[in-house]
């Protein structure tokens, strides 16, 4: 068992939660989402994001609109749907529970 694999698995599990979280306050387009995630060192390769975005969109948690940009072709801006917001709330409470549990387990 490689530690790299396990780390990757951990990151992947929470990636959907993180994508929804960064979209909570503000609509972003893919590169901005990438920027935020990479800042937090959550992503190793950028390609990971795109299948996830499409999946979240197909699950009606996200939707997008096209917006003109000054520096090139129009961009896809993603925004949370009603369902997405609810989904995020649930994930958040689960995350808090998990965090609490993990702290308890690892610190005792």
């Amino acid at each position, binding site marked *: 068992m490689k530690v790299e694999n396990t780390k990757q*698995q951990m990151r*992947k599990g929470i990636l959907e939660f993180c994508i929804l979280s960064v979209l909570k306050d503000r609509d972003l387009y*893919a*590169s901005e989402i*990438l920027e935020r995630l990479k800042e937090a060192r959550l992503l*190793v*390769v*950028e*390609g*990971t994001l*795109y*299948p*996830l*975005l*499409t*999946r979240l*969109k*197909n699950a009606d948690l996200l939707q997008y609109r096209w917006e003109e940009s000054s*520096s*090139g*072709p*129009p961009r*896809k801006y993603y925004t949370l749907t009603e369902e997405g917001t609810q989904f995020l709330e649930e994930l958040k409470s689960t995350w808090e529970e998990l965090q609490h549990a993990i702290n308890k387990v690892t610190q005792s």
Partner: protein
Amino acid sequence: MKKTININLAGFVFYIDEDAYEALQKYLNNIRTYLGNTEGKDEIIDDIESRIAELFSEKQKQVITLTEVNEVIEVMGQPEDYMSEEEPEEKKSYQQSSKRLYRDPDSTVLGGVCSGVGHYLNIDAVWIRLIFLAMVWSGVSILFYFILWAIIPKAETTAQKLEMKGKAATFSNIEDYVRKGYENVKDDFKNVDLKGAGEKAKQGASGFSAFLGELISKLFSALSKLLSFIANILGKLLGVIILITTVALIIALTVSFIIGSFIDINIGNDLLVLPGFEFIGPDWGGPFHPIWYHISMILTFGIPAFSLLLFALQLLFKNMGRLSGSIKIGLLAVWMISLVSFIILSLTQF
């Protein structure tokens, strides 16, 4: 000096080197293959393309070279790095392989030979069984049955059962098979990069000899593939011809034995008695009894016929078992004995 290509990537226009273009094309094709038929595949590809375009434009270069492409691929990652665990369900559609001859263990009378052959030919097993029964008359098909039982493998796993019942060996499938083989070979010839070799040749004599070597080795590998493809087709063709000939031969032998027996009975000559009924006769036994003549005749003609049949089956179906060496030697010995006794018996009888 290098040739560049003008591409439009998600609305951005780039000049890109030829080799860089090929690398990018290959990368995108990889992703496409990797996604298989995932939902929203085209959308994912579009998104990835527009991200790549953005990364290129950030570099602010006149011409995109292989270096930039490799950098971008590094940032984006290889498809297997980021998609393998996204979709845990089996994405690859079950590739239906061609049909294979197996014995069917689920519907057997004896060894499942007839039902297996029935599956293969898409005929109800009853008809195959009837043919076998009709041939039992001469004693040939019993031997035939046991040989088939020995060399046709039993379908044990689910995959094998699927293969057994799979696509019928119809003409369109055969055409498919031939076309696929042809395209493989054609691609190989395409990959023999004549133009590239020519250009490299201009660059210098030392490069030229290396390229000549590579070109020749590529040509040879393509040629050898072509030859094995042709050999494969010829082998199958030969197999079919031998199979048809042998089956016709066996049927002819069977029929002639049956008719011969009847005629002999009708003329009152008991040289050949109706096979199967000799046992009832009062004079059973004795070295020169007609039944020995009959048996030696069947074996003398039957064993070569079955060897041919076996050969044909092995040509046609790759999964056929082989007779072990001792069985082969045994069959050869039996054949020689029956040949000798057939000749002796013929001489003494006439």
